[in-house]
Every structure is written in C-alpha cells, then in structure tokens.
C-alpha cells in the first residue's frame, strides 16, 4: 500500500496532544493547591518509564518502541494528578510500579490491558495507604512551603501540623468544613455549603481540565460520547438528590466541577484501550461510570469514587462490546 496516503495521526502524536491538553488543568492545580504536583509528575514518569523499560527487557521486546509511543508518560502524569500532592515519594513510586506492572505489562503491554493503568495504580495506593491517600493539603487554609512539603514527602520528621492544613479529599471535606463555623458545629445550610464550594480551588481546576478536554474534542483525539455521558449522568443524579433530599446537598452544578470529574471524564475514562469501542457502547460505559461515581461519592466508604467506577466499568467493556456488535 502507498504510505503517502496515510493520515498524519500517529500514536505518539495522540499521546502528545493529550499531554498538551492537560496543561491548563495542571497549571491551575499547581497554582491553587500545590506546585508539588510538577515534582510528582516528573518523579512518576521516571519511575514508570524505568519500570516499563525493565518489563519490556524481561519480556524480550523493544524498549525503544514502548517508550516512544508516549503512553506510559501519559499514564504516569494522570496518576500523579490523581493522588494527593503530599503523598510520600516511596508510596507514589510503588503506585507507579503497580500501574505499569499490574495495570499494563502483565496483560502484554499497550493495547492488551483490561483496566485503565492509571486507575489501577490509584486503586492500589488507595487500598494500601488509605491514610495518606485521603488527606489533601489546602493552600487556601494555610500555606505550606515547598521545602516543608518535600521533607514530609521524604518522610523526614517535620513540624507541619497536618491536622490543621489537611482535609479529607475535596468533596467530603467541603461538606465537613461547612458544618463548622469558627470551630463550632453549626447546622449545615445550603448557602454555607455553596459558599464553601465557591471558595474551594476545585471549580477552577476542573474548568482547566474542561478546557483541555474540549480542545481534544476539537482535535478529534477523543469523541464526545464518554465525557458527555459521564457528566450528564452525574449532573442528573446529583440534581435528583438535591430535589428529593431534605438535607442540604452539593448542587448538581458543583458536582460536575468538583473532585476529579473533569479530569476523569475527559482524560481518564476516554482511554480507548479500556473503554467500549462502539459509540453506543461508549455512552453506556459513560453512564455506568457516572452512576457508579455518584454511588461511591454519596454512599461509599471512599471520598472519591471515580477510580473505582472506571475500574468496574472496565470489567463490563467486553460484555458491552459483544452485546452491541453492530450488525447483530
């Protein structure tokens, strides 16, 4: 076949575009939460690439081919963005190794894995180190210097009063925080809750990821089916809860711009390897992720349900695909 007719789209291009699209959200994250995220990303890429190289060597495959496609850089970046910034380096490193080995290489490398590698790494960390994985520093409440943070991450004893500067992960903490006024418990009101949400850094970060995601849509790297179905499902379910509940609830509008929603909907769930492959399948897959995320957020033991929703839906993908076989 004549190679000159081939489209210019290549695997490496795709991965680069996705990485570029992550820039606005990541910048907002670094600015509003902690610049430590950059160090985490670099560290995570280093560990993941090394692990990938070792695995490829052990499997007697070309290391260069595996590293050149950029998929591992992207997965490492996503993992680093998903974990709390002050997570100790050794834990983050373990997560990266688990991501590459358990999430990707044991299935036979790129394209063969059933589960989203970044989410495998995240889930591994979540169940192994629940304590460090569920606290987030919050620059808005008290600033912590990068030096202090670095020391903490290396597990050097520091004088950081963790309790006062950390909170449970975004959504949960907001709800908790809005029940206290000057240290005194108060009745939770809808206005207090909304105020808390507006003051939190998450909406801005989510808008950053949303911008990147829309650009990916424009560039035709991803299709609209998965992000739109996830966001719509979350919006509708949260809306339903707000309407039917007597308690003040996170409004539907805020639900879609808080936590990992945008990062997950546009960058994590759209990983084509582990998502459903037909358009209708993608919509079902997205609705599944949206609903499971809502369920874990509202009633589950973990504060952020996105990772588990993605992993659970990954398991359903072969079923979705074979059921929806186009001509059948």
């Amino acid at each position, binding site marked *: *076949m*004549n*190679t*000159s*007719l*081939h*489209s210019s*789209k*290549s*695997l490496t*291009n*795709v991965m680069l575009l996705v990485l570029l699209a992550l820039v606005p959200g990541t910048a907002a994250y670094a600015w509003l939460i902690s610049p430590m995220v950059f160090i985490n990303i670099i560290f995570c890429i280093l560990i993941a690439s090394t692990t990938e190289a070792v695995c490829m060597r052990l499997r007697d495959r070309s290391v260069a*081919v595996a590293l050149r*496609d950029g*998929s591992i850089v992207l997965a490492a970046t996503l993992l680093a963005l998903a974990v709390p910034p002050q997570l100790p380096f050794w834990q983050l490193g373990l997560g990266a190794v688990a991501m590459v080995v358990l999430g990707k290489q044991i299935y036979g*490398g*790129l*394209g*063969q894995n059933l589960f989203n590698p970044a989410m495998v790494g995240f889930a591994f960390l979540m169940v192994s180190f629940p304590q460090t994985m569920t606290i987030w520093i919050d620059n808005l409440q008290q600033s912590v210097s990068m030096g202090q943070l670095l020391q903490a991450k290396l597990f050097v004893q520091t004088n950081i009063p963790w309790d006062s500067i950390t909170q449970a992960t975004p959504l949960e903490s907001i709800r908790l925080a809005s029940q206290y006024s000057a240290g005194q418990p108060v009745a939770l009101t809808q206005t207090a809750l909304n105020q808390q949400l507006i003051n939190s850094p998450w909406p801005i970060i989510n808008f950053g990821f949303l911008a990147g995601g829309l650009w990916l849509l424009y560039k035709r790297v991803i*299709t609209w089916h998965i992000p739109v179905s996830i966001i719509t499902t979350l919006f509708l379910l949260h809306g339903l809860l707000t309407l039917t509940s007597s308690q003040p609830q996170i409004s539907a509008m805020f639900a879609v711009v808080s936590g990992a929603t945008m990062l997950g909907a546009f960058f994590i769930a759209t990983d*084509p*390897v582990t*998502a459903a*492959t*037909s358009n209708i399948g993608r919509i079902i897959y997205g609705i599944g992720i949206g609903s499971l995320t809502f369920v874990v957020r509202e009633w589950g033991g973990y504060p952020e349900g996105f990772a588990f929703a993605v992993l659970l839906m990954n398991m359903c993908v072969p079923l979705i*695909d*074979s059921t929806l*076989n*186009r*001509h*059948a």
Partner: protein
Amino acid sequence: MINWRQHYSMARHLTNSTSTVSAFRGGIALAPNKQGLSNPIKTVPLPPELLFNAKEPLIEVGDIVLAGQEIAAGVLASWSGRISDVQKNNADYTIKLIPDGTNTFTSAITEADNPMAAIDAAGLAGLGGAGFSTLKKLLSQQQTQLATLVINAAECEPMIACDEALMLENASEVVLGINVLTQITQCKQCIVAIEDTKIAAIESIKKAMAEYADARVQLCIIPTRYPGGAETVLLRQLSGVRITKNQHPADHNMLCFNVATAYSVHHAVKRQPLFGRVVSVAGSAANEPCNVYALFGTSLAHLLKHTNNLPAHLSNNKINRHVAITLGGPLSGTALEKGVNDLPNVAVNAKCNTVIIETTNLKATEQACIRCGDCADVCPESLMPQQLLRYRHSVDMLYDYHLPNCIECRCCDLVCPSSIPLTDYFIKSKQTLKTQQQIQIDAQLAETRFAAREKRLARRAKEREQELLDKKRQVASAPAAMDIKAALARAKSNKPS
C-alpha cells in the same frame, strides 16, 4: 415488502436525467490525484512478444493461433500469431506468442450474429479490476426483467484515471456500449454513476448521452469519496440496499458494469473486439504520467519503455531497489515482488488498470492497537476493524464481526495511528475462514462416510451371525448327529464290564 428508500431514490432517477446522492457512511475523501489527463490516450507499438499467464494451456509450442482463440482455460490470444514458448513455473504457465502482421480474428468473432454471441466470442471480462466474465454476469440475470443496470464510472481510487480518460475521449462509444447493455438486459432503468470532481468527463458523457443514449439511461453524480466506486458501496449509495458477502447484485435485481467494459462491449458487438485496455501510468517516480491503450499480453517493460516511463536504472541491468512498482491502484493494488526487475515478466491483463511507479519509502513500524475506533469510523461496510484484529484467532468471533463483508478497501489502514496493516491481517483471516470451512466440509463428508461404513459393518456382522446360526441349526438337525449318538451308545454297550 417495498424498500422505501430504494423506491424513492429510483423515482428520483426516473424523473431527472441527472441526479445526485449524498455521501455514504464511512470512507475517506482522498485527493483524486489523477495524472496524465491533459494528454490524449497514448498507444504503444505492437510488442515483439505477448505474454500470457494461465493455469491450463490448450496449445503447444509452434501452434498458429488466431486472435480470440482460447490458448488456455479462460485466456484468449489478443492477436493472431505463433506460440513461441510455453513455460511452467510452479503451478502457472507462461505462454509466449509472437504476433503476426495480419491480426486475423476467429470465425466465432466474425460470424457472431447476436450481441451475446459476440460478447462470448470476444471473451469479455470486467475492466473495473476484478476481471469477472461479462458473459457470466449477463447470464446470471436472464429470468426476470432487470430493474436497475448500473454503469460504474466512479473510479474513486486516487491515481487511477483510465476510465476518466476513456470518457473524455470516447464518450460516444461508451454510451453506445451502454445502449447495448440496456438492450441485452432489458433493464427498466440504467444509472451511470460518476464522481462530482470529474467535471470534464461529466460534460463529455452528458453530451454523448444527449445524442445517443436511450431514454432509460440516467446520469447520477456521486460524491468524491473513496471507496464510493466499490460495487457494494456504489449500489448502496444508489439504492440503499446492502449487499452482503453471500449475495450478488443480481439477487437485488441489479447489475453493475464498469464503464470501460461498456466501451469494450460496443467494440465486441461491432465484431471488432479490442483485446486490450486503457492503463494509467502514474506515481511520483513516473517521468510522463499518462493513460495508454495496451494490448493484453503487453509486458510492462514494453509499456513503460514506449511511454518514456521506464525507471532509469533498468536499462543498465542494474538492480534498482529504490523504485517500487504497484499493479493496480495505490490502495487496491499489489506491489511487484522484485520491483523493477519483474517488469519484463508481467503483462497487461483485464484487471490491470494502473501501473504506479514510486520511490520506495520506509514502512512505518507497526505499533499496538489502542482501539481508538478511527478505523470503524471510516469503514464503508460498518465493520469494526479493531475488534476483527483483536479476535483474529477466533473463527467464531470473526464471523460474529462479519469479516466476510470486508471489501479490502484499506480505509482502516490509512487512518490507523498505530500504522497497523489491518487489511493484510484480514486477508489472512479470510484465508483461515476458508480453510476452516473446507475442514468442516471435509469433516462432514468423513462423518457420513464413517456412519455408512458402521452401518455396513453392522449389517454384515448381523448377516454373518445369521449365517452361523443357520448352519448350527442345520448341523443340529442333520442325521450326522444321530449317528454320533448311536455310536456313543454302541461304544457304551460294547464296554467290557
């Protein structure tokens, strides 16, 4: 049940002499890149030797043959002359013919008294690329009146320009050929489908149609989109009917002929069959891209030499590794194995619509499939190449994902970000399916054979048993048994006490 989409589209064709259809699902808008159309169709001098590749030769060295004489199963001599050589290589034979100066036709051609006989005598084969026998196609549709005759003038693949050149130059003969086909098939309507970017060819055909075409012939402008001219895709665009792998257009009361075939039909019916075709010479390494009329059996070396397209190094007998020769379009064609060195051994036949000369470029390394689904978006047959690739080792899954419907257009290859040669995998998979089917047929045969044998053996055993039983009974009832008893009694009585 009435197919309404078909109904409406046909009604539209009947009321307008020119109609258009909207783009089909999938496919890619490729740059047409038709070359050499600014010059008239060239001809090359009669080659000193004609080459034919065939399976079963029917002649011997030294035989004198006439033009149109069958020299091997399904192969007609394209010129009269003497057979100079019959060589066997592997399963195929290469027949060489030295043409004489007269070009005498067989009596079947000169004495043909009706169009079908003339088409039969000229041994017409489709010139669109598949090379299916025109006569067989016409015979497949004899019982009922044909609803739609489609003349495929789309020529959707880039670089192939032979049909367009033919329509620019010989539109009237093309239209006359179409008339013959409409008469033979007795069709209710005839649609000539042509891509909207072939503006000059559309004008030329319109003019000829206004002058010669019978009232049933309509022109339909289709969007320029690859592979819009592939038979199944074209018929779907025109009628909305999906033709699956096990069906022929005739099953939907349609027939489809290439426009160049119509041109050949015209000449055959005039008892002047062509035994040749227009070939496009194109590609970035071609000196003078052109369209050239070549007799079947003309070697590519001769063709390229006389059109001034022979890659420079061949004349010095040096191996040229930097030039690749593709027979057929850039997507549907096959590259010559030994590149330039194969040129003297490969000849023009009915299927050979294009010769592409390109400098070889490095193939991109194949990477892993990430199931992005770009291939499914461009597949004109709505298949899911990503799934067909993933399940290529499972015969059942290949059927589930409708592999046999693949038309091998290579759209999926073009968009794959991992540069996977998907179609090559599918061709291999199709072979597997075929073998598997054969195995199943063989197994079934063996099973029936085995069952019959078992039955036979059982019957024989029973018969033997019966025989034995009969014998025993016979023995028991025979007088000999009495004798033994008597003898025993005698012996007892004779015993000394």
